[in-house]
């Protein structure tokens, strides 16, 4: 072989591979360039099967593909949409749901009561491991589908479920079914607004109780838009208008849900006009957002709530006075202004302003910034000399935790450090194991617009997100009484009494209420976002 050849061969091979690489990429279709369709940025949905899609992105995409039973009006009261009527019996225990006639799935199947029953049974059945399964827990028979693990995380496996369908669901006729709850609940209609309660067509099931292979990637709904092609994972989900939709008809012809991995990246595309709506603009971009977007940069309220939980099981934080003192050491307004640039609102209550029954500034003095009083109270009650706030780094909490710590340091003269954990699950696990991780950064977004959806999961003894171990039997009692009250008004009374206990006890420090911070391109108008962080797909329109 002549001396020079191998090297030339190598160079040639490299050049060829580059050429091949060059041929690999095609241009993305430019169909949306001047048509009546828009691009909305989302994250990769975890799932698109309604009972498994509990993340923001998944339920946002579902809102285009499905038509819900109820939606909420400006007063956060549920209003029938796909349902003709939803009526309880006297005891608020058996609810009768009548569907509007004439609706079909995208594959032409008519929407019937059975479609709801099948979908809900599938979602509630424990072995199907649907992340939204817990929404069905109020329905009679849920316990039989989800036997409890007798020894929690121990070696014993939970017994097999006794049933595979919810005994509380009963079909009356093709357009009517009843839901029997295991306990009376006057506000059940509000719960039905969540995306897990969407129906599934017969085509979804390969046999009863089994979802067909590949259905999720080509999901079929009953909504104003249908899937165009397949769900292209990590890339996009394209939907187009259903031609003869019976319900409210959107003004746009289609949506490309473009999947982003990072908010800052998405913002770069929003500014460059590659995406029409960004639903959450990252705080790092906020100070330039007005300049970049002008009036196309908007905020509106949503249900998010930031707070810090105390490890009330630790002696250092056992006294409510110490907890109040720390709360008073924090200047909420300054953090809202400087860190969040006004995109979050100081919180001085324990439930979000978006739910009925919210009372402004219920927390009173304990949530007012008063460093002098805070220090007196703190010193008098022997607060610890070291405070640690643990947070998960994957959620972008470092900036405000550090700022909060700096304020506590300055106000109380104690040392305060922010302690990062890589993931929320680690933080949660350490909290549950009562490891000494100090104060815990927490947050909550409601599933349905009721006070109870904050008070129950966050503060009651067995609350699913009570990670900090506070327990008060009077409080638990009041929550239960509220849920079983005959009217929503009566329920709110009880729940407000419960909130009063929180004010005295301060098991957590309310910090901020979140807002939708969104922006849109020059191509669209009438962009509105609701409490569930979703874009209103019926109002949005393109500018011709």
């Amino acid at each position: 072989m002549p001396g020079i050849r191998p090297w030339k061969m190598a160079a040639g091979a490299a050049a060829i591979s580059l050429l091949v690489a060059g041929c690999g990429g095609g241009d993305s279709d430019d169909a949306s360039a001047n048509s009546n369709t828009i691009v909305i940025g989302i994250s990769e949905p975890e799932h698109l099967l309604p009972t498994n899609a509990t993340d923001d992105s998944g339920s946002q995409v579902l809102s285009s593909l499905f038509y819900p039973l109820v939606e909420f009006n400006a007063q956060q009261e549920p209003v029938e949409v796909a349902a003709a009527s939803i009526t309880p019996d006297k005891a608020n225990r058996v609810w009768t749901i009548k569907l509007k006639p004439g609706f079909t799935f995208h594959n032409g199947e008519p929407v019937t009561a059975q479609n709801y029953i099948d979908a809900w049974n599938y979602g509630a059945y424990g072995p199907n491991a649907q992340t939204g399964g817990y929404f069905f827990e109020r329905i009679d028979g849920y316990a039989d589908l989800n036997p409890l693990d007798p020894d929690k995380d121990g070696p014993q496996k939970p017994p097999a479920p006794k049933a595979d369908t919810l005994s509380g669901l009963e079909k009356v006729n093709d357009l009517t079914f009843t839901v029997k709850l295991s306990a009376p609940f006057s506000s059940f209609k509000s719960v039905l607004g969540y995306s897990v309660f969407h129906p599934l067509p017969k085509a979804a099931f390969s046999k009863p109780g089994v979802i067909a292979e590949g259905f999720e990637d080509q999901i079929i709904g009953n909504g104003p838009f249908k899937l165009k092609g397949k769900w292209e994972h990590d890339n996009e989900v394209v939907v187009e208008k259903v031609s003869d939709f019976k319900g409210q008809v959107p003004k746009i012809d289609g949506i490309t849900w473009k999947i982003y991995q990072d908010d800052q990246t998405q913002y770069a595309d929003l500014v460059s006009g590659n995406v029409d709506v960004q639903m959450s603009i990252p705080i790092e971009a906020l100070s330039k957002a007005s300049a970049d977007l002008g009036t196309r940069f908007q905020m509106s309220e949503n249900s998010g709530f930031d707070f810090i939980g105390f490890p009330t099981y630790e002696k250092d934080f056992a006294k409510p006075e110490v907890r109040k003192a720390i709360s008073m050491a924090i200047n909420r307004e300054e953090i809202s202004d400087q860190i969040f640039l006004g995109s979050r609102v100081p919180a001085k209550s324990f439930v979000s302003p978006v739910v009925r029954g919210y009372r402004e500034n219920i927390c009173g003095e304990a949530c007012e910034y008063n460093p002098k009083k805070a220090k007196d109270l703190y010193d008098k009650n022997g607060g610890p000399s070291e405070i640690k706030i643990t947070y998960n780094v994957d959620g972008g909490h470092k900036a405000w935790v550090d700022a909060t710590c700096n304020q506590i340091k300055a106000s109380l003269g104690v040392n305060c450090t922010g302690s990062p954990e890589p993931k929320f699950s680690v933080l949660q696990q350490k909290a549950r194991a009562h490891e000494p991780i100090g104060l815990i950064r927490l947050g909550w977004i409601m599933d349905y617009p009721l006070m109870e959806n904050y008070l129950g999961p966050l503060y009651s003894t067995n609350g699913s997100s009570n990670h900090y171990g506070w327990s008060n039997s009077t409080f638990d009692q009041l929550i239960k009484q509220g849920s079983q009250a005959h009217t929503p008004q009566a329920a709110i009374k009880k729940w407000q009494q419960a909130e009063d206990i929180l004010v005295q006890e301060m098991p957590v420090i309310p910090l901020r209420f979140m807002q939708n911070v969104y922006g849109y391109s020059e191509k669209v108008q009438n962009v509105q976002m609701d409490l569930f962080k979703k874009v209103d797909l019926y109002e949005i329109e393109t500018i011709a």
Partner: protein
Amino acid sequence: MTDIKATMDALPGLDHRAPLLQIDDLHVEFRTRDGVAKAVNGASFWLSPGETLAILGESGCGKSVTAQAIMGILESPPGHITAGEIRYRGVDLLKLPEVQRRKVRANRIAMIFQDALSALNPVYTVGFQLAELFRVHRGMSRSDARNRAVDLLDQVKIPGARSRVNDYPHQFSGGMRQRVMIAMALALDPEVLIADEPTTALDVTVQAQIMGLLAELQRQRNMGLILITHDMGVVADVADRISVMYAGRVVEEAPVHDIYARPGHPYTRALLESIPRLDLKGRQLNVIRGLPPALTDIPRGCAFNPRCRYAKDPCRQDPAPPAYAIAPHRTARCHFFREVLGE
């Protein structure tokens, strides 16, 4: 080939009647962080066609530097030619632009290096390295150049040249490698061949073969050969004339037989006396006292004076001794050459 030689004659000032190669008062110094090392301090000699001139001296006396200066491959920096002339057929090579200088190399003046293994590029076949000359200088096609390479290997008597042309340097034995070097040097029919210690790295029998080959090829082509060596045995056999260098100067220049019979410089004398001889077997060998001087610090006057048994006051004073013409075609730079010759 002749037509190419003809275009080469376009060298400005080329005069076929002028001496083949003439070096005049060449000065080379190395400017390093440790100071200026004066490697060559006024070397002068000439070379005629068909003649073999041996340049003799210890390591560091400036032989190789002189050779590299003639070739124009002195590493610069740190090497600088500060004065002197190198005339090839009347053309001062030092004044030529680099592009023309490059055409002189290998075409008119070629060089053989001491260690053929490191002097050949390890990652190319010898065929490639030979053919490269024809391709670059003659613009030959790949296959023509290769055929010429095979011819050359044949000429230097490498067995199985046609297959060995595709071998890499490390696949040859030491002697064969040196033959490849010779082939490379002769490829473009140069008129001057500089061989820098061509046989030092080889064992004795191979040395003789290589020297024989060189002599044979020189005769065939009527080349001028400059043989750089510190081996007086080699010199005696093949050289016509000898230039002895010490500390960057030619201290004695003479036809080979004269020098062996009657050295005219104490250094030459000392070199000869340090050779063990059969007829003097049993006597103590005369070794030269001391070490050659540091080139950064050459003694005043005659550079050899600290080691010289003839040295007297004038030897320690500047200027250095001039080249005394002690016989026709014979010079020595020693104030006391008569005493030296007389002994």
